[in-house]
């Protein structure tokens, strides 16, 4: 059913008698052209664009739990394209453009809200760095604007502007950045893919891979039996190393935990997203009114989807230093997601490393904003067996050839990213 004002009125007056499930709960067929492992935002977006842009129909998305039960449901819902490096910025800007048209594309309300992001500046050196970044963004066709102190004060009057150690000197604004309803993104892509004939198979854990004599991947072993496929695409952030191990591969990825927090709901307070430039702290306000914020990774490798107290303390200290009124709010809940931290902090969208295998991994803590473009480029890579120009830098072999994309300049130490 196509969602429209007419349909809302008709269904509202008839007790929703004509609405069905938004997507089928499919059972796996014995064979597919493409199997996408992982029913998160990226996997479902990949399936959607494979069907929509490349005309493939015999596609399955198989998911261990229910769709969107992993990081798609655990992020802080921000999208932005304020990157510096040429390998990154055009990709994220394309993602931004897809976000801007996503609701019309999917005929689904994903609550895209372009409220803007401000990265605060606390020193002259930081201003120089943000001027450079803003210019790099503009060169890639994105929007950016440097704000002085008075302009930041007009937007965010309750910040601690005269903090003795980290006074606020200005900010870099990207006005087109914003937030979206993370679950709705998953549901919208699932519904769109389903309408194009994609089978979405839930509660179907991949337990192994089918290989032929040459080592090529020919399908997957699952909890619901073997499924053959001409192409197998992995899109399993958080579990990439675990699935790679089933293929005797090692990836340039370590798993770490990132926490997020929500306060009790208050009236509209934070007009967009803003980030602390001296500590690691970022915050926005949800449509329900809760302040959504986060900070650094828990500093050591972990597969535990829960956070530890020292990082909670660190994030709260960052928040209090920047925004003292935060101390009057109560924390409502806290959770953690599992991050595929790649060795340079940038993602991998590539063919291989085995025949018939495709890899979308290593999104570190920035996968949500990339959801539309990652699906777009990964679908292109799968359908045409070539890298999409926008994701051409996200090769798996860049670590071997020295073409790493290290935005932060930290090196191969993911816990410090």
């Amino acid at each position: 059913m196509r969602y429209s004002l007419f349909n809302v009125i008709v269904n509202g007056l008839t007790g929703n008698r004509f609405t069905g499930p938004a997507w089928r709960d499919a059972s796996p067929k014995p064979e597919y052209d493409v199997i996408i492992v992982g029913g998160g935002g990226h996997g479902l977006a990949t399936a959607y664009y494979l069907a929509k842009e490349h005309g493939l129909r015999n596609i399955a998305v198989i998911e261990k739990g229910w769709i969107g039960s992993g990081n798609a449901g655990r992020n802080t819902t921000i999208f932005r394209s304020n990157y510096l490096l040429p390998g990154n910025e055009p990709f994220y800007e394309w993602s931004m453009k897809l976000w801007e048209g996503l609701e019309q594309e999917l005929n689904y309300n994903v609550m895209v809200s372009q409220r803007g992001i401000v990265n605060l500046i606390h020193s002259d050196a930081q201003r120089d760095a943000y001027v450079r970044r803003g210019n790099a963004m503009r060169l890639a066709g994105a929007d950016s604007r440097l704000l002085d102190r008075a302009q930041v004060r007009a937007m965010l009057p309750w910040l601690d502007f005269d903090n003795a150690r980290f006074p606020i000197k200005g900010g870099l604004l990207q006005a087109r950045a914003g937030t979206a309803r993370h679950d709705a993104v998953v549901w919208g892509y699932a519904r769109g893919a389903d309408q194009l004939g994609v089978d979405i198979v839930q509660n179907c854990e991949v337990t192994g891979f089918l290989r032929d004599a040459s080592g090529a991947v020919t399908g997957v072993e699952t909890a619901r039996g073997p499924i053959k496929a001409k192409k197998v695409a992995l899109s399993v952030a958080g579990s990439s190393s675990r699935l790679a191990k089933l293929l005797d591969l090692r990836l340039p990825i370590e798993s770490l935990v990132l926490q997020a927090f929500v306060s009790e709901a208050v009236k509209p307070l934070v007009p967009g997203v803003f980030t602390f430039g001296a500590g690691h702290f970022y915050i926005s306000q949800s449509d329900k009114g809760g302040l959504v914020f986060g900070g650094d990774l828990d500093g050591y490798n972990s597969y535990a989807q829960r956070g530890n107290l020292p990082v909670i303390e660190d994030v709260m200290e960052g928040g209090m230093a920047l925004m003292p009124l935060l101390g009057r709010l109560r924390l409502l809940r806290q959770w953690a997601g599992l991050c595929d931290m790649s060795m340079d902090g940038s993602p991998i969208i590539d063919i291989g490393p085995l025949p018939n295998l495709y890899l979308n991994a290593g999104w570190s803590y920035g996968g949500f904003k990339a959801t539309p473009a990652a699906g777009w480029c990964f679908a292109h890579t799968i359908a045409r067996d070539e890298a999409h120009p926008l994701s051409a830098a996200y090769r798996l072999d860049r670590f071997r050839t020295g073409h790493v994309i290290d935005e932060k300049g930290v090196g191969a130490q993911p816990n410090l990213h």
Partner: protein
Amino acid sequence: MQITCPYCGARDAQEFAYLGDATLKRPDPDLDSAQDAFHDYVYLRENPAGAHEELWYHSAGCRRWVRVARHMATHKITSAQFSCDAEAAL
């Protein structure tokens, strides 16, 4: 999380700096295969969702390197010894 340092005793993990996988061996730079071997050494990780041998530096304590056996999903620590002792025992 607490780590039992062999010298200082049970201390908060916050006193330690984390390095990571302790089983990696620095390759011989003079070998013909050194370029590939260094790629694997610097970038590729087993990253298991289970038992993990890892190096922690007791930076706010005795400043010694400690080799810790920790479960990546439960964080349960099964052993912690000076890395030099652990290396010698291997």
